[in-house]
């Protein structure tokens, strides 16, 4: 309501002023004013932009570009370093592995030699022991044969005596020998 009356009053005022009824845009009496203030505004904006804003923004953008370029270069550098380090690491690893293999082979050869020595020594001892044993066995065997002859002689003498004969040691030994050959 209030706004309506206000507008009506406004319209009346307009009519009283005799300004363009339709478009304020075509009211030439205000052109000078608008153009003057537009000129002021443009000059002020131009001064703000050319003196302060644009150089500052350009500097910031350039600085950022520089920072990005530097950072990229640094990153490239670091990357190269990392690759180098990796290569060194790989090389060290390969060296260490070869060294380890060499040491292992050496140790294996040493052990093998020791082993061979020990085996040879053991073989020799075994042979010696075997010969000794054989000799002992032969001795025992010979001893046993003698004992058998003695026992046979004694048994034969005892048998002959028991049967009432007169034992002739010589004849009995000959007979036992005879039998033992056969």
């Amino acid at each position, binding site marked *: 309501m209030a706004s309506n009356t206000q507008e009506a009053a406004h319209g009346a005022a307009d009519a009283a002023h005799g300004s363009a009824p339709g478009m304020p*845009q075509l009211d030439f009496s205000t052109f000078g*004013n608008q153009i003057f203030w*537009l000129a002021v505004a443009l000059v002020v904006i131009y001064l703000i932009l050319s003196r*302060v804003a644009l150089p500052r923004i*350009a500097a910031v953008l350039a600085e*950022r570009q520089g920072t990005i370029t530097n950072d990229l270069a640094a990153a490239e550098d670091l990357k190269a370093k990392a690759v180098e380090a990796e290569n060194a690491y790989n090389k060290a690893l390969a060296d260490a592995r070869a060294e380890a293999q060499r040491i292992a082979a050496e140790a294996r050869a040493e052990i093998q030699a020791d082993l061979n020595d020990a085996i040879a020594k053991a073989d020799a001892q075994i042979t010696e022991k075997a010969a000794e044993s054989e000799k002992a066995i032969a001795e025992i065997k010979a001893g046993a044969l003698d004992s058998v002859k003695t026992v046979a002689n004694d048994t034969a003498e005892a048998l002959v005596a028991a049967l009432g004969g007169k034992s002739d040691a010589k004849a009995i030994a000959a007979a036992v020998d005879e039998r033992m050959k056969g």
Partner: protein
Amino acid sequence: MGKIFFFAALALVVVSGFLFAPEHAALAIHPMDQFNVSPLFGDHIAWYTPTNVTLWMGLAIVAVFALLVLGSSRRAIVPSRAQSVAELAYGFIYKMVEDVAGKDGVKFFPYIMTLFMFIVMANFLGLIPGSFTTTSHIAVTAVLAALVFFTVTIVGFVKNGVGFLGLFWVSSAPLALRPILAIIELISYFVRPVSHSIRLAGNVMAGHAVLKVFAGFAAALGAFSFLPIFAITAVYALEVLVAFIQAYVFTILTCVYLKDALHPSH
């Protein structure tokens, strides 16, 4: 349940609409009143009088200052929001000038940036309800277009001498057609500032007038005012787009004209 509430609310709206409807709901719409130039003090307008034009142009300056100077005041490598908008605006116009007008057009960049920032800020400020839109006035846009026109013409003759007239002499056309084409080119050259200025003022003015007309409908329709209010919302969104696009169009056309002045050969 929701349905009942909805209908109850609707009924309430309708009843209240009838109760509180304006008594003389006759269409008292003054869509053009928003464009009135009125003095801030007193009631006489001379060329130096501070008017609402002064106020809103001043606010445009303040907005430009706030965005480009205060926004970039920290000079951060990693920009704040305001600073990145300022840088975006800078990069946008710089690239436009460089791409359209060429490398040698870059020295006109501050002038073109001035035009763009003024127009875009004036357009956006004009979208504040109750504000005054300086770019809706032919007087303003005509001065802007005339500035571009005269700058471009003078630069064209200074840079190329008489060779600038080669702009009108289409050497790739058959000889017989060339004079006719020259007349057409000449006319189109002089029509440029007209279309340049009227395009901007016309778009801005039409959009604002439409908003006001719908607002008037909303006042007159009582209960059904929600229909024009929806329409206002939609048109307002469109106007936000237009506010930027018209500033962009004005600026890129300036760059195109500048390119013609710097490189008049077709």
